[in-house]
């Protein structure tokens, strides 16, 4: 009984925070709502005995990615009132709710009954605790059965490092308009940029 009540409480909070992330005017407010949203999602993972993922969700998502979002928002010093017209109008929110509920109803009607087949059915809760805890089981699974994706993940991270350093550096090639054809145009570009960031 209590696990049902707990699930619906957490689900309600998740939906509330997701709505607030999308609807709120000030980007930092929506970033903080995203953090609380991630907190409740990690509570959901903990409820499903995915302990490692609950910790990772807070560590990587709430503690790193959304910190980057807050940094960029403060770096570009976006003010809520500057974003006139950036708010979601009421009809748009209406479309959101109608399409969400509609999709769920249609899926239910078509008899989509969630995941029922395909798993190897070995890793029940008892098997996981017997094998030495959720973290250990996930680690063994990752390093033995997912070797190639694991190595490609590091290539992906390397790619992201190189890309973000090239794009974001102050005098990087892209942002100083060197890519455009005529250098003169580049200077004009520079003029506009200076004007742009009043």
């Amino acid at each position, binding site marked *: 009984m209590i696990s049902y009540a707990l699930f619906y409480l957490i689900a309600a909070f998740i939906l509330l925070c997701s709505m607030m992330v999308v609807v709120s005017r000030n980007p*930092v407010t929506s970033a903080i709502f995203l953090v609380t949203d991630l907190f409740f999602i990690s509570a959901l993972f903990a409820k499903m005995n995915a*302990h490692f993922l609950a*910790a990772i969700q807070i560590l990587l998502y709430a*503690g790193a990615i959304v910190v980057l979002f807050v940094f960029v928002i403060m770096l570009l010093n976006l003010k809520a009132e500057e974003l006139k017209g950036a708010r979601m109008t009421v009809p748009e929110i209406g479309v959101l709710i109608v399409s969400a509920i509609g999709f769920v109803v249609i899926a239910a009607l078509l008899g989509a009954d969630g995941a029922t087949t395909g798993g190897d059915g070995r890793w029940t809760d008892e098997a996981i605790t017997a094998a030495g805890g*959720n973290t250990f089981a996930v680690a063994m699974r990752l390093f033995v059965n997912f070797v190639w994706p694991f190595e490609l993940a590091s290539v992906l991270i390397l790619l992201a490092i190189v890309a973000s350093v090239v794009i974001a550096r102050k005098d990087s090639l892209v942002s100083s308009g060197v890519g455009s054809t005529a250098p003169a145009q580049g200077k004009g570009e520079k003029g506009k940029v200076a004007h742009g960031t009043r």
Partner: protein
Amino acid sequence: MEQLTAQLNEVLGMFGLALWNDAFVQVVATVLKFAVLAVALLQIPPVMVWLERRAPALMQRRRGPNRVGVSLGPIKLRLYGLTQSFADAVKLIFKEEVVPEGAHKAFYHIAPIFGVFPAFLIACAIPYGPPIDVFGYTIPLSIISVDVGFLFIFAISSLAVYGVTLAGYASNNKYSLLGSLRASAQMISYEIPLGLSLIPIVLIYGTLDLNKIVMGQENFWHWGIFTAPVSFVIFFVCMFAETNRAPFDLAEAESELVAGFHTEFNSAKFAAFFLSEYVAMFVLSALCATVFFGGWQNPFISNAALASFVVGILNAPLASFGIALGAASVTNIAALIGIGVLALKAGFFMWMYVWVRWTVPRFRYDQLMDLGWKFMLPLGLANVVGTAFVLAALKF
């Protein structure tokens, strides 16, 4: 009485609990343990403030506060200024709260909360002593015993950055915005070496759970500092950087940015930031003691042996009062000894904070970031690889 318990059981049954069944005991134990821990943690800032005034004074051969004391009726107790900082705490609560105009109201009130609750959460994850048994229930002394141990502490402490960032963003003050950005940039760039420094410990003891790691350090020579000395060096440096203390306190240095991110916060909000800083300091010291200095294990005599020795001595005089201390009290006394030992070790590191603060000059900001990115990170990576290869060579 029976009718009352029956009703109570019926109400509790609705929550899947029953009087004194396992879950109910765990909830009650958690609440009691948290209450005791919260009271203990709330005492730390005033004592530390007194230490921060008294210790540097004695280091510089001048007298720090040494008059203020307590007069209990006829007895005049001279406490060398200790009660002064308790009076400060009370004053902070009754001061007026000045919210600067133009400040972002919602974040101004939320920022201290984001500072305080992570500190308390990770304070609960540290094992303070061996399990005690009360009325037949053995209750572990770490309030949160999750099997992801470190990762839980590492994840929740990465949330503390929001307290700093929001504080700077909310107070409509250029300098605190710059201070908060600098402080949060420093905290995140020292979080990676902190995380990397604990990986060799997991490699050696094979588990993330702090209780098991303390068990693994039963033998004095298996203490973390002997098995992973480089990790201790990195962790020790990152301890100071993570809490914006000592040589790394540029973000709130008086000479640089007045008070950094919490310039505009006064009275109780300032006390909240103060509390979260000192609690974070205590937690990192306790973590360092737990991981590198054997937690609640004392060097050569095991706690249980010491406890049975103490019980042996106490039994003689107590026998006259007809009280015989049974086995349960041995484990409880062993737990008390464990708490004392851990408190001693954590206290030593708190003293290190004060000691280092008054001996090492402050870093410039680029030196600080270079040390983090260009020295600590490669050292951490090399340490992980080194430990792995040594262990692999030994074991496989």
